[in-house]
């Protein structure tokens, strides 16, 4: 039974995307909603990205410095390994898992509340494509702002490591800075940005789906919001596996 309902949900999601991914009725209205989305979903997420990236970056460097303590390995390895972890996985995948909680629940609860208070029906009755009007600007805004968040995260993660090296002195700041520059592959940055944009699309569209299909009252909106975070997390991890194999394998 749950397999059938899961398949039904996938079908409904595909049908919703078909309605979402069409040209907006009015471009100026789309731009208004897009800019609102950039501020609400992107700009308002910068602080959490900065704080989490700083501390996780510091912890990554600390853990690697403590655990890679072999005379066979040069100390700058700490910088190299930390950089690869931050660039390849932390700033895109782990940051998106965190953002799926903040942004995903925000989108699901906003659209879900509009659904149960008949605001979505009101749009439909006016002849507006409600799915396109409500969801497309959010997807576009979040996907477009994702590179900014990822770059902030990369920078703050590496900066957190820098501070921990400054405080503990092992490895030294100079060794760490040398490490994060050694054997640098620029394409990893682009890979990470591209991956995060894909995750951004998943977070915004899946959360919007759960909000848009919410029925009942406040309790159901809360459930839809929770479900969107859970499904987003699973999808992000599964997509990460596939994307990493395709892009780097």
């Amino acid at each position, binding site marked *: 039974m749950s397999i059938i309902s899961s398949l039904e949900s996938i079908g409904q999601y595909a049908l919703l995307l078909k309605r979402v991914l069409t040209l907006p*009725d*009015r471009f100026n*209205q789309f731009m208004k909603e897009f800019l609102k989305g950039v501020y609400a979903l992107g700009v308002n997420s910068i602080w959490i990205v900065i704080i989490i990236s700083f501390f996780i970056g510091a912890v990554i460097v600390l853990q690697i410095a403590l655990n890679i303590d072999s005379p066979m390995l040069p100390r700058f390895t700490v910088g190299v390994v930390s950089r690869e972890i931050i660039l390849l996985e932390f700033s895109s995948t782990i940051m998106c898992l965190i953002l799926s909680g903040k942004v995903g629940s925000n989108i699901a609860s906003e659209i879900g*509340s*509009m659904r149960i*208070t*008949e*605001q979505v*029906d*009101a749009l*439909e*009755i*006016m*002849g*507006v*494509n409600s799915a396109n009007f409500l969801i497309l600007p959010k997807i576009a805004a979040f996907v477009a702002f994702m590179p900014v968040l990822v770059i902030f995260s990369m920078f703050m993660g590496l900066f957190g490591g820098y501070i921990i090296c400054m405080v503990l002195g092992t490895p030294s700041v100079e060794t760490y800075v040398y490490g994060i520059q050694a054997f640098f592959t620029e394409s990893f940055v682009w890979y990470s940005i591209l991956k995060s944009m894909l995750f951004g699309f998943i977070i915004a569209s899946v959360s919007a789906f759960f909000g848009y299909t919410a029925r009942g009252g406040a309790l159901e909106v809360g459930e839809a919001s929770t479900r969107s975070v859970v499904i987003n997390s699973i999808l992000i991890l599964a997509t990460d596996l596939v994307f990493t194999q395709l892009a780097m394998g």
Partner: protein
Amino acid sequence: MIEVRNLVKEFDGTMVLNNIDATFQKGVVNIIIGKSGSGKTVMLKCLVGLTPPTSGEILYDGSNLTTMRSGEVRRLRRDIGMLFQGAALFDSRTVLENVMFPLEMFSRKNRRERRKRAEFCLERVDLLHAANLLPSEISGGMKKRAAIARAIVLNPKYLFCDEPNSGLDPKTSQVIDELISDVTTDFNITTIVVSHDMNSVINIGDNVIFLNEGIKEWEGSKSQVMEADNEKLNDFVFASDLFRKIKEAEEIISEEEKG
């Protein structure tokens, strides 16, 4: 004019609307009444296309809604205004922005003209003073008035009202009823109101349809409602103590006149 022919709606095998035939005339207030669960809100949702009927025809001035493509339905809906039970104003927009919204989406008017038209509609519902307030800052009755202003801003041909008086005090309910009636005659539109409020029926019900368990039990005018000999309708109408007493008073007066 809206015509409904053999309208049937089933949910998981349960018949909610059973072969309904009805005609809703232009320029008059058509009221669908019935107990909770009688199918009146489902009928309204079928009429506006929010819920597809299982079978039957819904004709808007001859055009069948049930066979229209989605683009045609969206075009038709630009001629429809709807007042929802909870008003359904957009939370993040002011009252004026709510009323201007349909104009921004579908009108070719410039910003000044759009604002002028929205202010005219707000003035019509006596709400211009609250133009810059958010929906959370106004009362339930004001929300309903704002929703009526939004519903009429594009000069609709059809107006639908779902329980317009729910949650309102009797005085405010009367104001909303009169507003719906005035708008219907002023703009000469086809208005369909779903309600279980007998006061509304007596105030503005030019054409009254009584639904009972998904079946159209009775149809007539507001003056005929009190005199009808339909048992189920009488059960519904005279469930209210006030209407029972009015009926008794009318019978006493009538007997005295005969005597």
